[in-house]
Every structure is written in C-alpha cells, then in structure tokens.
C-alpha cells in the first residue's frame, strides 16, 4: 500500500469539492434540510404520543444517524460515478494503483464528504430543537462507526456492480438505500414489521444500530449484545463486499468494461 497514491486519489476529489461552492453547499444543504424537517416532526410526536415521551430527540437522532449512513453510501458511489462521468475511469485504472489503495482512498474521502454534511446538521439541532446527539455518549462513536462501515459496504457493493455491468448500473446506486431503509427500522421498533420482514431485518446490522440508539435514548441503558451483533454483521458484509469488488474487477477485465467505461 502506498500512502502517496492514496493521498493522490484523495486529492483528486478534494480539489473537486473545494473548487466548487455549489458542491459544498449541496453536501451541507440536504442533511440540514432533512434534520430540520425531522426535528419538527419529532417535536410533534413528542407531544402527541406516549412512546417517545421519555426522549424528545429519538426521531431526530435516528434521522441524523440515517442521514449519515445515506451520505456515506451515496458519497462513496459518487466518487466512483465522478470517474465515469468525467471519462477518467481508464486513466485511474491504468495508474499503478492497487485495488486496496483505491478503496482506502475512497473510504477516507467518503468519510470527509459525509462529515462536511453532517457536522452543520448536528450543530443545527441544538439551537433549533434543544437536542444534542452527544447524549448518546461514548456509544455514539460505536453507532457512527457501525453506520459508516455499512454505508461504505453498500458503496463498495454498488461500485462492484458498476465495474461489472458498467454505467447502466447507475440507477441501482441511487436506489440501494431506499430499498434497505424499511428493513433498517430507523424510526420504528422491529416489532412493527411483518414477521417475514423481521427475519430479513435481523440479518442486517441496521436494525441493531437503530434499536440500540432508541434504547439508549429512551431507557438510558446499553445493550452490548446489539452493539456486538451490529459489528459482527458489519464485518461479514464488509468482507463480502471486498471479495465481490475483487471478483467484479477481474470480471470487468474479462468482459472489457474497464476500457469502455463512460457515459
């Protein structure tokens, strides 16, 4: 692994982001809008239901966590799509970069992109709604880490599809998160789902993360088992995504996708 090459690819995206004010605004705008919207909904529920009475910020906190997941996943996909849209894909793959270096650089860049959007959104919640996501304490870090790993995992899986099938896979890139959101139990307990959906939800890390976030905020207790299951499933899916990415890279070399990649 070469840090110089990882830094080089990071720079390519850093320059792109910092050159364009609309691009930075776009990164900040949607999370802030999302948080503001859910903040008002959260306030409404807090005063009209018993479930959320003990923790006004539950929905808002879950909205922030979900947005972080969404931004990380989409952010990773965007980095890959940028190369396709700019017809720079071939240049990247004829540079002497190992797959591990490409992935590492994109993983770091995706985190920075997500944080650019998330930090202003978190800062908004305190003055607007009197809520601080920091109430989750030390487990906030673990929950964010879990979401980050899963967001990156989804990004790698979609990028594998782009490598294997080309730009036609782009629409899938946008829809992945929406497909998984119902199973993630982001805003409701898992018991809300039909039994068959619950079985699917239990093999995803999301349900453990969001259930645990609600548990901490509502019951003020920590269920270590949920944290463990979230990390375990994350490790499984992350490893699977890496294997799939390498497989797709080799498949693309057989099929010729790497040469003709472009809009």
């Amino acid at each position, binding site marked *: 692994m*070469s840090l*110089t*090459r990882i*830094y*080089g*690819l990071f*720079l*390519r995206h850093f*320059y*792109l982001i910092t*050159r*364009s004010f609309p691009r930075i605004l776009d990164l900040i705008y949607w999370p802030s809008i999302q948080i503001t919207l859910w903040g008002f909904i959260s306030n409404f529920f807090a005063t009209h239901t018993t479930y959320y009475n003990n923790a006004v910020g539950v929905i808002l906190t879950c909205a922030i966590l979900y947005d972080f997941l969404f931004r990380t996943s989409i952010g990773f996909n965007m980095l890959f799509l*940028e190369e396709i849209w*700019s*017809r*720079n*894909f*071939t*240049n*990247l*793959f*004829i*540079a*002497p*970069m*190992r797959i591990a270096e490409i992935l590492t650089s994109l993983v770091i860049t995706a985190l920075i992109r997500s944080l650019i959007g998330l930090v202003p959104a978190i800062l908004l919640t305190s003055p607007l709604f009197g809520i601080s996501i920091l109430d989750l304490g030390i487990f906030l870090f673990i929950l964010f880490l879990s979401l980050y790993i899963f967001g990156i995992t989804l990004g790698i899986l979609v990028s594998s599809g782009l490598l294997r099938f080309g730009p036609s896979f782009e629409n899938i890139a946008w829809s992945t998160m929406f497909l998984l959101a119902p199973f993630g139990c982001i805003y409701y307990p898992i018991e809300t789902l039909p039994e068959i959906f619950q079985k699917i939800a239990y093999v995803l890390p999301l349900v453990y993360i969001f259930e645990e976030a609600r548990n901490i905020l509502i019951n003020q207790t920590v269920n270590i088992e949920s944290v463990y299951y979230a990390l375990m499933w994350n490790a499984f899916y992350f490893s699977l995504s890496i294997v799939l990415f390498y497989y797709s890279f*080799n498949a693309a*070399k*057989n*099929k*010729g996708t*790497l*040469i003709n990649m*472009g809009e």
Partner: protein
Amino acid sequence: MKNLIEVQNIKKNYGKKEAVKGISFNVEEDEILGLLGPNGSGKTTTIGMLLGLLKPTSGQIFINNLKLEENRIQILEIINFISPYIELPKKLTVKQNLYVYSKLYKVQNIKERIEYLSEKLRIGELLNSITGELSSGQKNRVSLAKALVNEPKVLLLDEPTASLDPEVGDFVRTFLEDYKKEKKISILLASHNMNEVTRLCKSVLMMKNGEIIDQGKPEDLIAKHGRTNLEEVFLKLSRSKSEFN
C-alpha cells in the same frame, strides 16, 4: 536492441466472438510501431490487453521483460497511454490534474516534472485553467503531459492527433519524434492517419478481423503491394477478403 514490449500469441474472446486471434509482435527500445487496421479489427482490444485492462484469453505479454499477468503494478509504473476517448477530470485545473497523477505515479520532484512538461508541450499558460474549458488541441497536449508525467518507457497512443488542426497535429508529431529520440522509449501508435504513421513509424502491423494480416516497414509495404502510399496499402488490405484471411 532490447524489446520493451513482447506479445506472444495473445487471443481475446468475448464469448464466441474472437476479437483477437493469436497475434505476436515485439516493440524495441527507441522504436515507434504503428498499429493499423479498420474499425473493429482488434487494435483497441490489443491496447487494452497491453494496459492490463483486459485479460487475454490466452497468450502472454511481457513489458520490459516482466510478465504482465504477474507484475501489473510494476509495469503500470513504466507505461502510459492517451486516447481521445478518455479525459482528465474536467473540473480540476491542469496543474491539479498533473499534480494528482504525479502522486498516483509516485513521481519525485513533481514541481520540476510539471515545469519540464509545461515547457516542452507549451502548456505553461494553461496550468491554472480549468481542464474542461480547454480547446481540443490544448486538451490533447495536457493529456500528453499526463501520459509523460511518470517518464514512461512504453507509451501507447490511440489516435493521438485525432480532431487536431494541422498545426497542433504537426507539433504533437514533432514532439513525439524528439521525445522518443531523447528518452529511447517504445511507442505503440494506433492511428488512422497514414501520413502520421509513415512519418513516425519504423514499422507497422496491419490488423484485420483480429489478425495481423501484414507487417513491415512502411516503404517496404508500399513497394510490396505496388502502391504509392500507405493509405492505398491500407485500403487494399482492408477491402480484400480472401487474399490475406
């Protein structure tokens, strides 16, 4: 003279379609080899295999005596490529693009390298321009600078002067001639511009339907086929079906 590119009986099949049917050739140090052929003859597939973007169905490729299959990263460090079909990130400035690629190729003394290429390729005034806003000729020279940023021993050029006006086209050809002479590099040039090939290439390969149907020095091929220039040879070979297949 040392062979920097050695291609041994490579084939590439896409399912039942045979895109390249077992071709072999070498490119020596300080040589420009022309790769000619009509569209769909297998030129791009061949270049893709040389760049490690495509896996040959069978056969072997050696670059600088290293087997490509086992030494992809080491080989990519000494090879580079330009094509009008690939571009540099449009939103970045020319300097940022060259800096990024210098990092990817782990170039030492990046500042000096960019200054050297800027002077040689007359892109000094473009360094702070947005790449996507350049003219075709300017983009071409910037792409060439990117392709030379790692001081490649092997340069693969796919239509390097396509869509350029005669002045810029001539500038690029002269630059390539001088650069090859100075650095003793190997160049594989795929082009449909027969005057360009005649001027730059020591020898040429003629491809058709995935096979090499003829090869030799441009002047020898012209004499052999009883024509007056390489374009006529190209047309004869492209149109004839039974003679060479």
